[in-house]
């Protein structure tokens, strides 16, 4: 068996490189995780990413036309593949079935080189027109699991969290994350306080408590942070942030039971 003869061109590879770069691990996270792994004892300065950035802006040029067309298409909601492929009949067919162009909504004509004049002529302006949101949230809908998981509907300040409410909660928690990442502890605590004020028992209340303990343990309120960390771990022993809280507040696995 040999590799597929159909290779991607520069245009496709540039876009994939942009996607890969966009989803690279943030440098601060990289440093923090490494520091946690080694305590900074093993060449902490040598763990920067070696991923090859494109260096050039070739992907910008190559993607410019596609981006604009894409935005138009996304707004119009145009499909790019045929329905038969969406239903994926191939799953029931032998693996060796050769895909045909009939399966595709668009015939595979010769691709336009990334350096074509048409593409190069397109300027990539940061116009707000038709720019799609980076994050697509689903339509709000009754979520029984969500409601069930709260202690009781009466206890929640926002028993039917709307899209707006969730987005606002998310924004505040993300602000806290970002501030913590930059070492801006007071900004993190401000965002967390704001979250507590607006969403006392919101969806991200648990995360807020964990981040609050972390922020305080990193700052001058270490003892307060430690106390809050113990309370957090007692309430949420399985929390995703539990390990990070223990790490930051220097608590061992058995601390909560001591």
């Amino acid at each position: 068996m040999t590799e597929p003869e159909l290779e991607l061109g520069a245009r496709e590879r540039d876009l994939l490189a942009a996607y890969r770069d966009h989803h690279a691990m943030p440098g601060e996270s990289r440093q923090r995780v490494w520091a946690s792994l080694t305590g900074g004892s093993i060449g902490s300065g040598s763990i920067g990413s070696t991923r090859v950035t494109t260096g050039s802006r070739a992907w910008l040029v190559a993607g410019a036309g596609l981006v604009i067309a894409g935005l138009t298409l996304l707004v119009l909601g145009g499909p790019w593949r045929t329905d038969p492929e969406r239903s994926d009949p191939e799953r029931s067919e032998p693996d060796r079935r050769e895909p045909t162009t009939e399966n595709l909504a668009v015939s595979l004509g010769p691709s336009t080189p990334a350096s074509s004049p048409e593409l190069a002529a397109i300027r990539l302006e940061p116009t707000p027109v038709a720019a799609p949101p980076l994050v697509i949230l689903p339509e709000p809908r009754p979520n029984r699991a969500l409601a069930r998981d709260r202690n009781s509907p009466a206890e929640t300040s926002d028993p039917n969290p709307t899209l707006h409410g969730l987005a606002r909660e998310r924004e505040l928690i993300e602000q806290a994350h970002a501030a913590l990442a930059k070492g801006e502890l007071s900004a993190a605590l401000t965002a967390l306080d704001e979250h507590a004020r607006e969403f006392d028992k919101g969806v991200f209340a648990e995360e807020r408590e964990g981040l609050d303990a972390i922020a305080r343990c990193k700052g001058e309120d270490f003892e307060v942070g430690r106390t809050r960390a113990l309370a957090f771990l007692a309430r949420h022993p399985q929390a995703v942030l539990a390990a990070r809280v223990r790490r930051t507040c220097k608590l061992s696995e058995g601390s909560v039971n001591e």
Partner: protein
Amino acid sequence: MSAHAQSESTRLGSVEAAELARIYRDHADFVWRAVQRFGIPSAQAEDVVHEVFLVVQRRLADFTGATPRAWLWAIARGVAANVRRGGERASRREQVSLELVRPAEPDTPEDQFGRTQAAELVRRFLAELPADKREVFELCEIEGLSGPEVAHTLKLDLDRVYTCLRVARKHFRAYLDHLQSKSP
């Protein structure tokens, strides 16, 4: 630093420490993306990546392969599954498909806009692909694994890997051509 991490780093020999540093330097991005593919929200990705590398640290002596990506993929999948199982709230967030957006890197507005939109186009394409083809396409074309490596990682026949890859490439090209044809 926790006592646990302290003891881990203390017992690492210099050779293992260098190897760990190399793996981390070369593959942290890969693990970062992998855990998010396994359903970990980006806000939790840092903690999960940390857990993955703690496992790597513990098992470093057992690793004998030429390239660690298949190994890292398997560890990331296991750790992510544990986190998802253990964290009710995390899975609840998954249900509402919340994705916390990483703060934008300092960049020119044009670069930032272009990169974000290019990444968004690719993301939309990937979202349309059937899961099996998407996984193969991501590992081959985005993560740079070879066909045999992908076959090993996903426990698939090499024939199947190449078939999925060929179909996914054709779809990707068709998708871009379609966008191109609509370009003003």
